[in-house]
């Protein structure tokens, strides 16, 4: 589904990312872990064509992301608050994203009902602008928006950060549900080893821009990761 091919990014002399090859299969739940500055967000930004790689290319479903805009039709993403329009209410924001994703009013309403538990009555019908919501609630809105319009690829940067424990558990269920039939490819990055080992089939560890581990998740994975990071 996604091929990362010899991608590197340099700022001046400093190389922040250098990945020889990662092949992500369709339906895979792909977890990216690493300490701060490991290059996780940089990699996602290259994947979303927000940063131009110094060399190499990323191919998303046969489309080279910095050559054509066609990947936008099937890729949903939430990286940070710059993916929200802060002067809109959540309803207006979902309407905007839904419209861009070819959904009508009824589709959007039906879609949002699925996330009632996840929203926990804190998002819809509050007559508040997104900028006035708490960080966690902003994140909930952004994550759900990234799933609108049946994307084949969903990219979430640090989705568990800022969420309360109940919402974290619900988010894990949501991710497991959408990846159940191996149709949708999900890429998430996280600092929390527990969460990624729980939801991801495959975990890649980055350090200072380099790939240092590529693991198919097994019961031993958490231990292995904890051991790796406990230096």
């Amino acid at each position, binding site marked *: 589904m996604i091929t990362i091919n010899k991608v590197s990014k340099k700022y001046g002399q400093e190389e922040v990312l250098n990945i020889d090859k990662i092949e992500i299969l369709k339906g895979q739940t792909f977890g990216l872990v690493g300490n701060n500055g490991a290059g996780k967000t940089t990699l996602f930004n290259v994947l*979303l*064509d*927000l*940063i*131009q790689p110094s060399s190499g290319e990323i191919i998303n479903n046969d489309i080279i992301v910095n050559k054509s*805009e066609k990947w*936008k*039709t099937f*890729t949903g*993403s939430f*990286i*940070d608050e*710059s*993916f*929200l*329009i*802060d*002067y*809109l*209410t959540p*309803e*207006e924001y979902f*309407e*905007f*994203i839904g*419209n*861009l*994703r*070819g959904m009508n009013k009824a589709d959007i309403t039906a879609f949002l009902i699925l996330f009632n538990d996840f929203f926990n009555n804190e998002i819809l019908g509050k*007559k*508040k*602008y997104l900028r*006035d919501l708490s960080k966690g609630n902003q994140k909930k809105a952004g994550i759900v928006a990234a799933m609108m*319009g049946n994307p084949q690829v969903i990219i979430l940067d640090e989705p568990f950060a800022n969420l309360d424990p109940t919402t974290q558990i619900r988010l894990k269920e949501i991710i497991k549900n959408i990846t159940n039939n191996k149709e949708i490819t999900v890429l998430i990055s996280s600092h929390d080893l527990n969460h990624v080992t729980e939801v991801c089939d495959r975990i890649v560890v980055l350090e200072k821009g380099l790939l240092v581990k590529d693991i198919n998740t097994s019961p031993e994975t958490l231990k292995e990761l904890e051991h790796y990071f406990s230096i």
Partner: protein
Amino acid sequence: MFLIPAVITLLFYYANFRMLRTRIYLDNSTTVKKANTTNLSFTEKLGDIAPFIKNDIRLIQRNKRAKTILLISIVHVFFGVVFFKDSSLVNNEFPFLVFASLFVTGGFIQNYGQFIPTWDSQHFNMLMTQNISYRKYLESKWYLMVIVTCLLYFMSIPYLYFSLNSFLMISVGTLFNIGFNSLVLLYFGSFNRKRLNLNNGLFGNSQGTGIIQYLIQALLIVLPMSLFFIFDKFIGYNSGFIVIALAGAIGLIFKNYFMNLIENKYKKDKYIMINAFNKEM
């Protein structure tokens, strides 16, 4: 004698103290404003670009700076009265009337247009990854400028009261604003490199402004004026207006061609722009 002011002072001091004492807690001072939502379903007739037009209307409704610009644009419409009420100016073919006719409907394009795409700088990353082509995004901005300018043009119909000529001059100015200025501003928008925080006011706030804005403003006045003066001097007063109208018409007719140029420029500068807009000030 001194007692009365002293007592009054003490009373005020006490009243003030009481009031501040009750408001000392931080959580009371930050009441969250309730969102006012209006139904904008009339925009749906615009098809593909409707979601963007809707957003821009909300932006103008909810952000001081954008709202101020809309108000200034409306003030522009009335400002023309200063020139056009004096029929002797119109009858004597006063050259500076070309400036007035551009000015009447040009407020929105000039003031709003020069901050495209800076208005969206806070959520630019999302726009660049959503299911919309860069071209369509730019088109929606063009339509917004044109629609608002047309509304301002309708507001200028009362100028017929002064003379048919003054209304015709305003029509020429509007054609130039729509056909020429809209594209020029869209093009120069690709030079914008400064993030704009939407929650600040307009006056005394130069956020998002750089040297390029001043150059554009000068250009937008100097260019049509000099074009007009050349024809006015060598051929005649009316020919000057015809040339201005023609420039506008050419922009409209070859809009697609110019939009291609604009789109390529934006695509070329995409990464630089994203990087610049991500920098908090």
